[in-house]
């Protein structure tokens, strides 16, 4: 017998190991070493969360009670993976192109980004998953009890609520730590997936070890086992074709619709080709898991005392032969099965709850809608964390309330029937363009209601909500409404009865209502995008060019994606349009891309609602609808050829006219530059000449004379500075500058710049925010030149920041091989129209008197940064003027 404390210790060590593995995987992913983390092997192993504690322990019990029927639970997924992998491939492709975050998001997105459907599917999933999670907690608790004392009888429990509570709390912590690190559900939870892959290996090894022990140690080899099976009750088992087919179908449906399976199969999928490996490797895994089920059941029944709980044979058999180590391994296998299921289920459900229930409520109840950048990101993450805790709390509450009723043993199948209600809407959405939102809602609600009435609520037993009278006589004595004999057809197995009526009425209503109703424009667009996902993988268009300001959109996106992500995305989009900077044109394509990006974080319906607040007018243009209507393959091909040709012509024309414009602009620029220089030189000269003439005439009072001489002096300095700047600029522009590269601490350089710029408007109180620890990093560059740029930016902030209490924030960070230094003040910033102008020569946005310079400062900064191999950019949407200086951390080799 293994001491209970040792077991707890082993369990804790195992959990710590999982933590370390998850942490290590996250670390590797952050360093970009994701190659094997994203291999088909890890993908296949992660699919094995299909095998929960119910399969690990329960399959043996199932075999002991109902013979070979347990095979159906493995047969369904096997058939789907081998025969229906093209459906899975379509699901995965759609999941990636539409950035689907959950199964609720899939249904919502397909039917016109309807949040109503998202809510319905979320509710179905939460209700169906709660008892299933309770079952996992129960199995861990039971297996603890096996070690705690004498083998318990049946499913009866001692006071083990505290065990379950501890397990639930630990799982909540783990899931929150590794499941809510990233907001974008489309990015893989590398830590969680890797930990789960490890758990998959542990549970397989554990079950195989117990199997080998049973066959070769307890029995004397395969021949002996075969003869024992022959002699046991299992050999007398008669197949019930109805139940066999029904259960196989159910298990096949479950692998498509269980939220956790959707999470690992579609959302966490890194590469579509992994599906091909999984389609043979996962059935193999299932085969290995089921190989020793019957031998363990037969030997257990024969060897262990009568009345032993067959659900625990995997544990009790090794214990009966005093194999403590093996029993411990089996225990860890069961523990793995339970924990991995709960973790992924909680992540999947939390994503749904936060995206389809919390976010829409938030959008509705806050004033101003998505406009105005709040930190939505924090809100979503917290909503997810709370949802995870909520889901586990529900599971625990169900466990505590049901008190481990024997009904839990069958709850796995009941859950399966619940989530299978999503199947008609899902398959209909994938293959039938005529399916509509109202049809899907009608089918889902009908199926869900029948499932609740005919299977879920009766499962609480006679003491539950439904009394014996209601079960036997029907509500109010209406016989044809008896929960287990609807429409007067009784005598069927209750599970099959509920499965048949819920799914067939669900499907019938889905089809009938879809035929009777008319899909809206957005439903049609999404319908084509889903059904024909392989024909044109191009994204759905849905936005007409609106009056939205790219800057507002950036502010909103930063609230959801985080500043770095959002800026990177906007920059890439702008670059794709051939623009520099952070603000792309708000074209329909850009709207669509932004919506998909946001959908990865908050779900399609919410992202659509948020964008809708910015994009003007109708969401669907006539051209888009025409594209939906004209889809005869030939027309499409022909027109796409024409389109390609005319696009090429248009591209050439565009390039020519751009070159022409550039030349004209250059000539205009040269004239403007000369005229500007003339103006900047003549202005101080005017004062000098006028006052020297006045002084020459004489006859002035002493103080006046001194003052006029001082004006002449100051204006001469101004002239000199202008000439210096012009010369500096010309040297920099010609690239003839001598760089004096040395190593320095960035922190010291910022110190130097702050000190030097302190003279500018020294009378103003100016608050500087710095994060000193992040600033300490070595930098290889021409330090004097870099400091010159810093001084310029700091004095500009001091000069132009118009806030009542001016503040300047300096942020340093390292991204990739780049060092970025941001200077952000709290003034009113630079208007969008002028942002591209500020780096031009003589671009001075306010009046001359205050500036005191010639308007060459930022132009010089830009040239310096170009010479240092870096950039300086204006970053919009930061709540003030924000400039980013970026330069390579290592010295670049001189390019030839």
């Amino acid at each position, binding site marked *: 017998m293994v001491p209970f404390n040792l077991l707890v210790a082993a369990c804790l060590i195992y959990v710590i190991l999982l933590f370390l593995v998850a942490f290590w995987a996250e670390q590797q992913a952050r360093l970009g070493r994701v190659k094997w983390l994203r291999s088909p092997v890890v993908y296949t192993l992660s699919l094995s969360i299909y095998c929960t504690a119910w399969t690990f322990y329960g399959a043996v019990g199932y075999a002991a009670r109902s013979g070979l029927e347990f095979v159906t639970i493995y047969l369904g997924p096997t058939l789907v993976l081998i025969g229906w992998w093209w459906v899975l491939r379509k699901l995965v492709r759609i999941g990636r192109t539409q950035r689907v975050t959950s199964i609720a998001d899939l249904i919502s997105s397909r039917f016109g980004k309807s949040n109503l459907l998202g809510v319905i599917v979320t509710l179905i999933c939460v209700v169906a998953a709660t008892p299933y999670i309770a079952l996992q907690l129960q199995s861990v608790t039971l297996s603890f009890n096996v070690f705690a004392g004498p083998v318990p009888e049946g499913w009866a429990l001692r006071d083990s609520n505290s065990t379950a509570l501890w397990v639930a709390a630990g799982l909540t912590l783990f899931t929150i730590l590794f499941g809510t690190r990233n907001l974008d559900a489309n990015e893989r939870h590398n830590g969680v997936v890797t930990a789960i892959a490890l758990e998959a290996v542990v549970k397989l090894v554990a079950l195989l070890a117990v199997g080998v022990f049973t066959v070769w140690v307890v029995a004397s080899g395969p021949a002996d086992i075969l003869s024992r099976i022959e002699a046991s009750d299992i050999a007398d088992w008669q197949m019930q074709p109805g139940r066999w087919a029904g259960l196989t179908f159910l298990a096949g449906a479950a692998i498509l619709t269980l939220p956790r399976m959707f999470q690992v199969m579609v959302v966490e999928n890194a590469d579509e080709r992994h599906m091909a490996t999984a389609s043979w490797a996962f059935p193999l895994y299932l085969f290995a898991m089921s190989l020793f089920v019957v031998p363990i059941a037969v030997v257990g029944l024969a060897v262990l005392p009568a009345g032993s709980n067959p659900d625990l044979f995997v544990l009790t058999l090794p214990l009966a032969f005093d194999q403590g180590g093996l029993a411990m391994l089996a225990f860890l296998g069961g523990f793995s099965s339970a924990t991995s299921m709960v973790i992924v289920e909680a992540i999947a459900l939390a994503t749904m709850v936060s995206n389809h229930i919390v976010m829409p409520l938030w959008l509705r109840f806050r004033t101003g809608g998505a406009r105005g950048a709040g930190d939505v990101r924090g809100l979503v993450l917290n909503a997810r964390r709370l949802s995870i805790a909520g889901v586990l709390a529900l599971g625990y509450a169900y466990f505590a309330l049901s008190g481990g009723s024997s009904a839990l043993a069958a709850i796995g199948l009941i859950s399966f029937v619940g989530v299978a209600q999503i199947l008609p809407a899902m398959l209909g959405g994938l293959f039938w363009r005529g399916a509509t939102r109202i049809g899907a809602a009608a089918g889902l609600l009908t199926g869900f209601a029948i499932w609740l009435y005919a299977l879920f609520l009766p499962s609480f037993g006679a003491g539950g909500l439904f009394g014996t009278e209601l079960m036997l006589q029907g509500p109010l004595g209406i016989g044809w409404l008896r929960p287990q004999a609807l429409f007067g057809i009784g005598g069927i197995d209750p599970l099959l009865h509920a499965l048949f009526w819920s799914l067939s009425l669900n499907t019938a209503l889905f089809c009938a209502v879809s035929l009777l109703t008319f899909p809206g424009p957005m439903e049609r667009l999404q319908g084509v995008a889903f059904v024909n996902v392989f024909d044109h993988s191009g994204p759905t268009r849905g936005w007409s060019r609106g009056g939205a300001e790219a800057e507002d959109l950036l502010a909103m996106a930063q609230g959801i994606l985080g500043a770095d992500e959002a800026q990177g995305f906007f920059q890439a989009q702008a670059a794709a349009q051939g623009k520099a900077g952070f603000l792309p044109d708000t074209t329909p394509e850009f709207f669509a891309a932004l919506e998909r990006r946001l959908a990865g974080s908050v779900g399609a319906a919410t992202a659509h609602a948020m964008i809708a607040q910015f994009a003007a007018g109708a969401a669907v243009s006539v051209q888009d609808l025409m594209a939906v209507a004209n889809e005869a393959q030939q027309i499409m091909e022909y027109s796409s050829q024409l389109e390609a040709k005319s696009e090429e012509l248009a591209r050439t024309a565009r390039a020519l006219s751009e070159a022409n414009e550039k030349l004209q602009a250059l000539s205009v620029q040269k004239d403007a530059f000369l005229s500007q220089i003339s103006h900047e030189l003549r*202005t101080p000269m005017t004062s000098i000449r*006028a006052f020297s003439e006045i002084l020459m005439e004489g006859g002035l009072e002493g103080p006046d004379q001194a003052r006029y001489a001082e004006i002449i002096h100051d204006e001469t300095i101004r002239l000199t500075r202008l000439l210096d700047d012009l010369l500096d600029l010309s040297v920099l522009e010609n690239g003839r500058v001598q760089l004096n590269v040395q190593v320095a601490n960035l922190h010291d350089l910022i110190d130097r710049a702050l000190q030097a710029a302190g003279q500018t408007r020294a009378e103003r109180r100016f608050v500087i925010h710095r994060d000193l620890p992040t600033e300490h990093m070595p930098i290889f560059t021409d330090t004097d030149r870099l400091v010159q740029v810093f001084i310029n930016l700091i004095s500009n902030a001091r000069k132009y920041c118009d806030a009542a209490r001016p503040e300047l924030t300096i942020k340093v960070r390292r991204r990739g091989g780049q060092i970025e230094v941001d200077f952000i003040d709290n003034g009113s910033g630079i208007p969008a129209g002028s942002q591209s102008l500020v780096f031009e020569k003589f671009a001075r946005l306010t009046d001359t008197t205050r500036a005191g310079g010639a308007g060459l400062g930022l132009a010089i900064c830009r040239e310096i940064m170009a010479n240092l191999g870096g950039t300086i950019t204006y970053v919009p949407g930061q709540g003030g003027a924000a400039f980013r200086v970026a330069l390579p951390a290592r010295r670049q080799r001189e390019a030839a």
Partner: protein
Amino acid sequence: MDKRVLLIEDEPNIIEAIRFILARDGWAVATHSDGETALTAIRASVPDVLVLDVMLPGRSGFDILADLRADPGLQALPVLMLTAKGQGRARDAAEQAGADRFLSKPFANAEVLATVRELAGL
């Protein structure tokens, strides 16, 4: 003699110089530094002579002049334009816009004074 001149110019040192030159000669000198509100200032204190800079914050001197010439009440106001661009093209533009006289910066003090006096008919 109590003639009034209005100077529209944004460089404080140039304002001070011109004010000194004209005041010494007995002129009452008012100044205004913003292009956008210049027209209102002119209407508020119709001067005997207007000295108008071309490069002003908010609005160019040419635009202000065009508005003046379109206003029946101000059509006849004598205007001396100052510009720091000093190219032939600027002079043409000023004449086309309806400036009576044109001086490019830097100017001789005596020249400014003589031109203003001439415009006032002294």
